[in-house]
């Protein structure tokens, strides 16, 4: 029974049920901390409304691409190079096939 629930990885083991138990413990701790918070904010007033950078936001949606905008922006040259690599021209794709064929040939022979 013990063996069927966990995976032996050679250096240790991975048991999802144990992990779930730990996660449950942490969740309980979090709930405990949360329950000790203040409850006296006024419902139905402007305290509930969303604000964006101190401004009252009309459409509080944050676009999905803004989630890690800086990361993508910093990698822009690299990513653009990658996109150009996927040029959409079928002859290029065949060319890459020939390249991989040559790589394999040189490696095997």
């Amino acid at each position, binding site marked *: 029974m013990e063996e069927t629930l966990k995976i032996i990885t050679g250096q240790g083991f991975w048991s999802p049920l144990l992990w779930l138990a730990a996660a449950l413990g942490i969740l309980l701790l979090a709930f405990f901390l949360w329950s000790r918070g203040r409850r006296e904010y006024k419902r139905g007033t402007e305290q509930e409304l969303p604000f964006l950078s101190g401004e009252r936001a009309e459409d509080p949606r944050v676009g999905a691409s803004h989630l890690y905008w800086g990361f993508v922006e910093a990698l822009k040259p690299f990513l653009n190079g990658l996109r150009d690599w996927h040029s959409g021209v079928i002859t290029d794709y065949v*060319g890459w096939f020939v390249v991989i064929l040559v790589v394999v040939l040189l490696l095997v022979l």
Partner: protein
Amino acid sequence: MNRWLATGAFCIAAAFLILGAVALRPFGQPARTEMDDYFNRYSQPEVAANNAVTAIVFDYRGYDTLGEATVLFTAVTGVALILRRVRK
């Protein structure tokens, strides 16, 4: 893609293909023929067919031919699918 990279890779690949063709056993002198000798010898007693090729196509390797018929059927179905009329 860089044209020179493609050309160079192509030249090397072609050279290796020709090298392989040269390194193969001489033309017209198969090295190992047990399987084919068996087919030539036994296609008449076993399958009762004078034509050894047909005996192979439909009996010894009949399963391949089923796959081949499937390929043709698939291609015709595919052509019918691609060239069909869709009201959109």
